[in-house]
């Protein structure tokens, strides 16, 4: 099943990935990380992720560390 892995401690809350995801599966989380930012969370209860890696390509801080497709 396609999915992504997010390193919460690297996210600087620029939220560019939220606009990039074609299925809108990335949301702002509630937690605060060591940088003082609210990192994004991956929410895909229906298994809609395409594994297109557009979020990871856009992320300037490599907070989306892994993308799996298939």
């Amino acid at each position, binding site marked *: *099943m*396609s*999915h992504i892995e997010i390193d919460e*401690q*690297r996210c*600087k*809350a*620029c*939220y*560019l990935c939220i*606009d*990039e995801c074609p299925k809108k599966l990335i949301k702002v989380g509630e937690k605060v990380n060591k*940088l003082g*930012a609210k990192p994004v969370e991956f929410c895909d209860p229906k298994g809609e992720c395409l*594994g297109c*890696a*557009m979020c*990871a*390509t*856009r*992320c*300037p*801080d*490599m907070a*989306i*560390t*892994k*993308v*799996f*497709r*298939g």
Partner: protein
Amino acid sequence: MATQVFKVPDSIIKDMTYGFCPGCDHGVAIRLVAECLDELGLKENAITATSIGCSVCLYDYLDVDSVEAPHGRALAEATGIKRARPDKFVFTYQGDGDFASIGLGESTHAALRGENITAICINNTTYGMTGGQLGPTTLLGQVTTTSPTGRNVEYYGYPIRIAEHIALCEGTAYSARVSLDSVANIRKAKQAIKKAFEYQLKGLGFSFVEILSTCPTNWHMTPQKAHDRVRDDMMKVFVPGVYKDVLQKV
């Protein structure tokens, strides 16, 4: 069975966090350089000359040997490294203020001599690290801390188009301008960087890639709006494209 289609490149130092502002495209550019180093197997053989500016901490991010150059002199230093060790892969990673303002002489003459090295230049139309002053690539009308009424021709002159300038030099093998405003353009940017690296490996001469980037902090914009500005304003003045390619005769 899911296959992994994206990972953090091996040429990036493990468990580091960039010191850049949120939404800064320096992070994307460094990742693309690291991916190209991985794919061409250059990590163990590469030496980089880093510059002054936001790109100064490259050695904290890229797991390759690096030498810090005085402001603007990265290509002069890279020339020395390459001439002493022609077997090594040598590249520089510079900002537009470093490459095209204080280092314009070094940059132009490295291209004119046809040094077999690669230069990557990040163009964000301002001096990011020192607080957003007017740089050589600042667009006409752009407000900066040292042009509070906007850049005008009478007082400040015109911005420099670096990729075209380097393309005019006889020793240049490859000169291209790419943008990081969208995912499609990020993928094109990676192809351009890879091609520039390959031209050095083939020994064709000086290869250069100018990357249009954002500076949300000094532009006083959100990261999303900064990318809109790159697309709407910057790409009309600094048109992406290949300006010289000795193998394609552009």
